[in-house]
């Protein structure tokens, strides 16, 4: 089933001349993990807001499970089915205590009390934050806060989860914490859209979209993206570290293809060594 369908969408902020998003068309299947990458101000975050209906397209159409985001009556359903976790965990919590914050979403959509209790358990469980339940969010680390923020969105039980640079303010360990939560959620059929600067987060995705100056530059698999060195250059992206190593190795005459993960690289090197 088609989770998100964006059809020739353009959007411009009031106070700016340039289109933030221009003639973009893309679609995401339910259950996919999709990455959106691109330089700063390339329109990535605007795309996230368009999908969730925080902003309506100037032209074109955005549909979430068949609901048009321009239709004000559908907005509530769209936001129920599509949650966003933003960049700064400090700016998306409404309550001081973890549990009270997680409760905010379910309360908003009118979930009965008994059911809310179950949802808190589910959301805290899925993000591994049960231990912080009654703690002050301000005392937690960045990674822990961001996992709580994810829990707050999960409690609404969306079918799509958008992470809008949600790991960019975290240290490597915090990033790992958040990404492992995301992977576990995807196993449970959650559609995930990861907006990111980190190429290692792109590697495991089913699809990747590259944005540049508001336009869609590329849509395809990570393998295809990283094979296109001209595009990587143009969009201001970097290869993942294993791929960088492979490129360097090729320069010195060792061909290991284009491995994207450490494991792949190790495997390639082993077979090469055994062959000799």
């Amino acid at each position, binding site marked *: 089933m088609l989770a998100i369908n964006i059809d020739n969408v353009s959007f411009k902020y009031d106070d700016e001349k340039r289109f933030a998003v221009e003639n973009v068309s893309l679609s995401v299947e339910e259950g996919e993990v999709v990455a959106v990458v691109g330089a700063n101000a390339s329109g990535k975050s605007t795309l996230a807001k368009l999908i969730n209906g925080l902003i309506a397209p100037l032209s074109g159409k955005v549909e979430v499970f068949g609901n048009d985001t321009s239709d004000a009556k559908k907005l509530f359903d769209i*936001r129920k089915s599509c949650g966003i976790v933003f960049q700064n965990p400090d700016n998306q919590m*409404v309550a001081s205590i973890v549990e*009270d914050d997680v409760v905010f979403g379910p309360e908003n959509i009118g979930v009965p*009390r008994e059911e*809310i209790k179950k949802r808190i358990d589910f959301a805290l469980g899925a993000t591994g934050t049960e231990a912080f339940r009654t703690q002050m969010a301000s005392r937690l680390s960045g990674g822990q806060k961001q996992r709580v923020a994810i829990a707050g969105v999960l409690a609404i039980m969306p079918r799509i989860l958008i992470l809008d640079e949600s790991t960019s303010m975290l240290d490597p360990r915090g990033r790992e914490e958040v990404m492992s939560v995301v992977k576990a959620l995807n196993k449970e059929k959650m559609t995930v859209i990861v907006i990111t600067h980190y190429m290692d987060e792109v590697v495991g995705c089913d699809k990747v979209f590259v944005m540049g100056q508001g336009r869609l530059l590329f849509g395809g698999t990570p393998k295809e993206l990283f094979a296109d060195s001209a595009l990587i250059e143009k969009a201001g992206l970097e290869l993942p570290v294993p791929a960088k190593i492979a490129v360097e190795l090729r320069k010195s005459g060792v061909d290991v293809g284009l491995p994207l993960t450490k494991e792949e690289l190790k495997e390639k090197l082993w077979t090469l060594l055994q062959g000799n």
Partner: protein
Amino acid sequence: MIKDVAFGQYYPVASFVHKMDPRAKILYLTAYIVLIFIVKNFYGFAVCAAFLALAVIFSRVPILKVLRSVRAIIFIIIVTFLINLFLHREDQDVVIFNWWIFTITYGSLRFALFMALRLVMLILGSSILTLTTTPVSLTDGIESLMSPLKIVRFPVHELALVMSIALRFIPTLMEETERIISAQKARGADFESGNLVSRVKALIPILIPLIISAFRRADELGDAMEARCYTGSKVRTKYKKLKLGVNDVIALFFVLAAFAGVIVLNVYTTAII
């Protein structure tokens, strides 16, 4: 650290007082404040102090944490104490100290101590409420106590949400202030020297970035709240239902006992100490 200011600083332990309904706590605190203002003599304060001591013991908050709240108003206490000490006059008073324009009498000393004690008791009692009640349940309590105002279309829920968000952002903005101060100091800003005017002027480079960042945060928070389906109070359910429990009833007996004690002492004690 500025983060640890006593105001709104919840002390997380499980205790008798922590488990009480915030509405009961607010009402009992109101009663306690009334009590402090009807007390006529030090015996009455002994009753209030006993009540306060019980509250501290049953809240399991370290006594030092409670006492620390006095620091916030120590200046006011000292000033009122001195003003009362030198200016209060009673009929048939005994002078115990006299130098130049300063005169202390037995009556003024007694009165000054009495008023200072009243202020101390007031802040101690209030701090027990904020130490044992999370800002969120405090606003829940206020929201519930104010809910009759909904009839006249007063936006009770919105007000409660605004309050809890404000409380939630206190530590965040405190941290931000510290960061801005450090950043400005690193660029050579000087906050410690100069006269009052130049010191106040030195605060401008702190306030402007702080206000700008607060607006940016507000903007992002608005988006995040909307993304989490916030639309106002129409379809909202409430997860935490406030329920009066046994603790609240037991505490009520103590409140009533304190009231009875103070009234009896007010009526039957003529000694002025």
